[in-house]
């Protein structure tokens, strides 16, 4: 076992992500799937089918079926309007979990604190399992991938067959105190995602390398979402002791006294600036960004997914 997470649930609020369960369906977003007249999956097919019960209309192009012309509209506006309906298909979903060492922060190895929040890795696993179950349950094909290095290379992958598989994976992980070895044991070694990815989820703390180099983004899916997982200890420095020194393991020159981090919100300003720049980068690439900590409310997460489904997945 490389890293072990803290699974002490006593300090957690049940309404936060720290309690997210794969089968958690409180969120309303997936009603859209049920209510829609899709055939299968969450992906809108690129081939559009003329339909009387149309989703939208467009100008007639020579060659379109004449019987689908909205003659009433033509009578009204002297415009040849064609009504169309888009079909849906099973989407290829890639869920990527970053296993860089910083994802296993905080642990007892790092901070001698009694009530530690869950590690970023645990949150990432909870999110990944939840997303996988959600998509599998609406008929999508889900591939999960891992990167154990701090370089943007996928080292392990796993094709999720059913929500039951994911559930057993999650249960096993929880029993194993969310250790990385337990997770990796479910995966097979692989470095290439051969299928065309429609939707990619990237769950990481974004610290290992520039986010745009991430294999999920590089696979160029039609939609991608960056779930930026940070620990609540990273988004808030009130816990920091003034006379202690805080450093970064990979850049030896970066060392600061705790009092300086707190002073004039130096740390928080820089952190928010960084998160904002990440958001801008992702959005520019037509992606979705959400910052998630162990303190993030489940409701907020659900709302984010809902927005994304409305605006992205079923666009």
């Amino acid at each position, binding site marked *: 076992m490389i890293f072990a997470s803290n699974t002490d649930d006593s300090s957690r609020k049940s309404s936060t992500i720290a309690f997210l369960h794969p089968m958690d369906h409180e969120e309303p977003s997936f009603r859209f799937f049920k209510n829609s007249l899709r055939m299968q999956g969450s992906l809108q097919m690129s081939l559009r089918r003329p339909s009387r019960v149309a989703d939208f209309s467009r100008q007639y192009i020579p060659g379109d079926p004449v019987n689908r012309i909205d003659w009433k509209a033509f009578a009204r506006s002297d415009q040849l309007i064609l009504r169309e309906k888009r079909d849906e298909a099973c989407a290829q979903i890639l869920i990527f979990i970053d296993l860089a060492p*910083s994802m296993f*922060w905080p642990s007892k190895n*790092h*901070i001698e604190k009694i009530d530690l929040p869950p590690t970023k890795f645990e949150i990432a696993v909870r999110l990944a399992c939840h997303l996988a179950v959600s998509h599998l349950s609406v008929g999508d094909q889900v591939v999960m991938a891992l990167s154990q290095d701090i370089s943007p290379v996928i080292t392990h992958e796993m094709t999720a067959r059913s929500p039951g598989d994911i559930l057993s994976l999650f249960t096993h992980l929880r029993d194993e105190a969310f250790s990385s070895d337990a997770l990796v044991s479910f995966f097979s070694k692989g470095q290439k995602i051969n299928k065309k990815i429609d939707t990619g989820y990237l769950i990481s*703390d*974004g*610290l290992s390398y520039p986010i745009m180099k991430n294999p999920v983004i590089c696979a160029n899916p039609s939609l991608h979402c960056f779930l930026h997982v*940070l620990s609540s200890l*990273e988004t808030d420095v009130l816990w920091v*002791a003034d*006379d*202690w*020194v*805080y*450093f*970064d*393991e*990979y*850049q*030896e*020159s*970066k*060392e*600061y*006294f705790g009092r*300086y*981090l707190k002073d004039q919100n*130096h*740390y928080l300003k*820089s*952190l928010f600036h*960084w998160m904002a720049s990440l958001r801008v980068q992702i959005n520019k690439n037509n992606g979705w960004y959400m910052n998630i900590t162990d303190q993030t409310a489940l409701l907020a997460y659900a709302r984010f997914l809902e927005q994304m489904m409305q605006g992205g997945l079923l666009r």
Partner: protein
Amino acid sequence: MMWQNLTITWSFVTIGVILLSFLGLTIWWIIRIKQKRLWLPTLRIIELQESRLPNLKFRPPEWVAFLCFLALCAIFVFFSMQPVKKVVATDGQERRRIHLFIDLSPSTSARLPLQKLAQKILTAWDSLHEGHLTISTSHSSDIVQLSNREELENYIVSIGYHRSGVLLGSAIKPQLEKLGKIDRLFIVSDRDLYSWTDFNWRFLSEDMEVRLLNLADNHEEDFNVYFNKASYLSSPDAPSMDWDIELEAKGAYANIKGILAVAYKDVELAAIPWTINEGQSRVTVRVSWPKTKIIDDSKDQEAHLIWRLERLDDAISLDNEMRTEVAGLGKSVLVVSDSSGEQILEDPAYQLMASLEVLDFRPKRFEWFEEPLPPWKDFPLWIILFGKNSQIENYCPKEITFNRLAASLGEQTFQSGMPRIWLAPKNFNQGLRQMCWCYHRIMVADSANQAIPEYCQNIDTQKEFNSVMRAMGASQVGGQIGREEEAFAWVGVNKKSNLEVIAFSLPLKPSMQTGISYARLPILMRSILQWQGFLDERARRDGNRDVWPRINNIVDYWPDGQRINKVAQNLVPNDDKKLLKTNVPVGESYLLKMDLKELPPLWVPGQLIANSPHLPASDDQKNPLPWIIFCTWFVIVILLLEVTWFGLQRLRSYKKTLLMLLISLAAFQANDKLFAKIEVSLLASSGSSLSLQNLAKDVGYRTSLSFDKEIKVYNSLDEKIFLEPWIWTSNFAKIRGSFQSIDFRVANWIKRGGFLVIENAPELSELQKLTKDAFSGTSSQGYWTAIPPDHEIMRSFYLLDSLPACDQRVWLGYMFDQRIAMLAIPYSLLNSLSDQPPSQTCMEATAKERGVRVFVNLLMVALATDYKKDQIHMREILKRLR
């Protein structure tokens, strides 16, 4: 080494090392307490500017190196200490290495006859002989170990006092080095200030116990008279020998009386009474005797005048006798010359001998040499005069040649030493031939029987003689350097045989012809004799020759004896003549005493050694130097290993860069053609060859551009030619493709930026056909035009008025893409500028200079187009113009 025996002193080095080690440890500890550190991963991304921690960070030390550091600190501290205080040790058996040094200098002999001295030493022997006892004296560096009293007594009596002075420090040092480790040093000596000067016995007392057996305890109220100065006064021609002898008295005295007697070869010459009154410290006694009293046969070199102070009872009797050389006798000189007549004026050697006598020499005259030759050492100088008919065999002895040859070969010589030889003509320009032959025989010839050399046969004048002497390698004496005709004499030296020959080119007699007057001859002789070392001019001038040598420190004359003799009889004092002849140095006669406080503790024979306090511990000192050197090397090796290791680790991170650097260096080394040069690429039919050596020189000289004299010739439009920046061609057909249009590859090349020079260009219409279609589709339309007078070709380097036309045809340029892309020259410019220009070219009418200028301009345009358009330098140009 016993720890309890070691008392240490704190030197600066020790304190420095300790402080530095503590500093190192403190820094280490300070850094260690900074370990309240926590990893916060997000700091990696966050950019915080100020107030970082100082660059102190904890790093676990490399344990091996750190332990080495600690060990080394301890070692340095330990070995930089020195034991300074001796711990009193009991007198065990191991403390029995005792050495007895006996001072036998003249001052010791004051009122102490040799027998008394021997008795005193025997008393000391009785107290000491149970240990390992060695004995040495100031006579030599030899150390003896004697088995019984008789041997010791005989030994002391046999060697006796010496007349030389001694400095105890320099005498004892080499003996102690020979002895090695000893525990006690007993010095048998008086308190003489001179002997104890510069003897730092306290240094020795760190290693051993040093005690003094004082011999001068009863003579506090004594006096001593000694010779202070002796001066010879008489002139060479005086009938008597006069000396002034200065006597000096030291100590306490009332009136001292005595007789000064002088003897030569046991014959008393004079005896003069003298008195030194109270309050008077010295007296000068004039001693005279007729010269005839000294009969000198010059054979006994060891004979001296012996001066004695008789009927005197002073402290030191050794200095009552003084030896001096016999002054006023003069050196013998051998003059070999046949007499030309009985009259003074007729004899050429008469004045020479008179001059020698004036100079205090005793000349002896031979008519010629006869077997056997006189002993050489009796006559240090031979003067041989050559006449017109002198027979060489009678005047130039072969033995000299034999001796020289034998000495050169390192063989046994006939007689030891060599006389100085003067060769001189009797009269002006006479006997020079024989002199030349003799010089050749003595100094040059391989055999004594050689005939007269050819170059000597024709000598008739002094000038000829001079030139031949110079040719024989002799050095010029007199006259200006390099002007041999002015030479007065020639000197030749053979260092191996110590032979020195002077050949005079002028007769050594007063003569109007040579300008040597009666007065100048002795002066001249004196100069030469002085130069050759026969006369000590300073001694003559002062009238106080150092006729009585004194040896101040006998150690300077010690033979380097390395043995320890078991038998006393084998040890006789060094009988070097100088030691015997020496006089007692003044310092020994002064009777000045050293203060007892400055001397080692006194020891009375019979005193038990066991009662001696403060004996040094025997083995309490070890030289730390080897250990410090070892530790230093250890540190250096560790440092080197550490530096190498970290250096390699560093270099590993630059592996790629280093590899690239190495490859590029290797490439740079392997290829010596990595420099820029300009060459002409000529598209021509096969077989054409042009040499542009002169043009390349011209271009290089004028523009400092490296222009290659070789032309790159292409026979067809292959791929390589389109890699060239410019192409010259005089073969119009080669660049023409289908339909009289330019080859499309050439067109493309021009569009890419190529510059085409067409020589022997056809008519304008042909050229227009050439470019009509090829460049029509491009955005910038090209056109042919005559080169205008303000074109860059006319002013890129030289300012040209016009370009040379040929057969009424002018230079045409194809303007394309805002530049000149093609140039059509009505004749062959390259041909006309080549090393062998053809006879019929248009350039004939014009000067070649103009062609070169045009070419240079063209080269500039090809290289930099219209670089003068570039106005980046405008500001500087305007500034310069203002």
